[in-house]
């Protein structure tokens, strides 16, 4: 699994894990993010059950596993968090932060030991070992209960499925050629994102943030001018296209 340290400062680090070479061909590729302080850590969208062993094997290069005190699930999809039952055995004392609407659903994956901390619809601030992360509402982008995560210190926005695409296992971890990249993610956004109103609400929120890296849960990470270009592109894109069928 590829791992890249995205950010490092006195208080914390961001590390991305992706492009697992051991995953099945038909399983969608995902990016997992670890934010690590001196004493604690949070895993953002820990990934599917098929990825668990690779993820566990990768994180122990950076920290003893018990240092992961928090998990965050942007929404309920299996590629996000179907590994929950196994993390539940690995980190029985951890806390899972996830949208309140999914609690009864996510527990189907097995959550007997981990504490489920529901995130209210309006989001909020999460504090861990001296750092603060903002849970930014991203409802209906695509999931009906969904959050992005913003770190004002690193200026990293974890955007969940927004900005992602059904990329191949050897696609680059960072957007290299924006025009080429955007073609690969068009269908994903048109088909998976259901609502123009939701899209606009998310864009309004996100445009107020100072972003250095926009990190999706699939595909490549946006940096520099590509962030603004992506937001503009999304603004102009018609989403919810399956509605044309009805």
């Amino acid at each position, binding site marked *: 699994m590829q791992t890249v340290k995205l950010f490092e400062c006195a208080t914390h680090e961001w590390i991305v894990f992706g492009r697992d070479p051991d995953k099945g061909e038909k399983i969608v590729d995902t990016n997992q993010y670890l934010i690590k302080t001196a004493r604690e850590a949070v895993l953002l969208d820990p990934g599917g*059950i098929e990825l668990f*062993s690779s993820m*566990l*094997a990768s994180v122990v290069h950076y920290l*003893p596993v018990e240092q992961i005190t928090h998990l965050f699930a942007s929404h309920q999809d299996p590629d996000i968090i179907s590994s929950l*039952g*196994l993390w539940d*055995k*690995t980190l029985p004392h951890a806390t899972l932060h996830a949208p309140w609407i999914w609690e009864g659903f996510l527990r189907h994956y097995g959550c007997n030991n981990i504490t489920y901390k529901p995130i209210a619809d309006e989001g909020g601030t999460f504090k861990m070992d001296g750092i603060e992360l903002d849970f930014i509402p991203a409802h209906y982008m695509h999931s009906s209960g969904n959050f992005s995560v913003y770190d004002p210190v690193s200026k990293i926005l974890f955007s969940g499925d927004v900005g992602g695409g059904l990329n191949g296992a050897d696609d680059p971890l960072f957007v290299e050629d924006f025009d080429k990249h955007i073609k690969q993610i068009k269908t994903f956004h048109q088909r998976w994102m259901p609502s123009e109103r939701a899209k606009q609400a998310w864009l309004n929120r996100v445009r107020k943030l100072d972003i250095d890296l926009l990190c999706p849960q699939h595909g490549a990470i946006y940096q520099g001018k590509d962030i603004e270009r992506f937001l503009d592109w999304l603004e102009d894109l018609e989403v919810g296209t399956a509605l044309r069928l009805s």
Partner: protein
Amino acid sequence: MRQNTELKTTFFITAVAVSARLGFVLKEAKNISLEAMNAKALVARAGENVRTFKPITDYMVELANDTIRLVDDINREALGISKASLIALRGNEAVNHFNGAKQKAGNAIYRDSFEPALRSAEKDLHSYQQNLLRNVRRLNELLEEIESRMLAANVVTSTSRLEAATVSKLYRANFEAIVAKFEQAAKNIRAIVRECRKVLNSK
């Protein structure tokens, strides 16, 4: 062929297969019960000269009721096996995932940090497997119990046949028919139960 596939599948399916077969046992037990009712009516009609048949019909009723009760217990146990087997299966998968991580972790600096999780998953798996074995043992015992009752029924059939031969010609054919049906039902139950045990004991 169908049975072969069932034999090779995992335990939770085996338990379902046993449960499905129990439906037939139940049907046969109800047949016995019905025959016993017929016999009772006949005994009442025939009066004094078939009095020796009375305890036999009582026995038939008892046997049918016991079997129905046992089928109930077996169904409960089979459901328990289904659950225990799925839990064990999931436990086994967890151990596999942890072992996979151990292998992939290579020389990672904190590779030992998930050792306790692996150990506890292994411990859980062991206890799940013990539970499953206990369940299977209990189910086997219940099936054995039905089978031994059906063997006892054989003895009763022989006695009944002798008794039937002594009753007046007027009723003889009727009694003989009842005994034959009882015998057949007991035989069918034994066959099904034997099959259940075979399915259960071949993993």
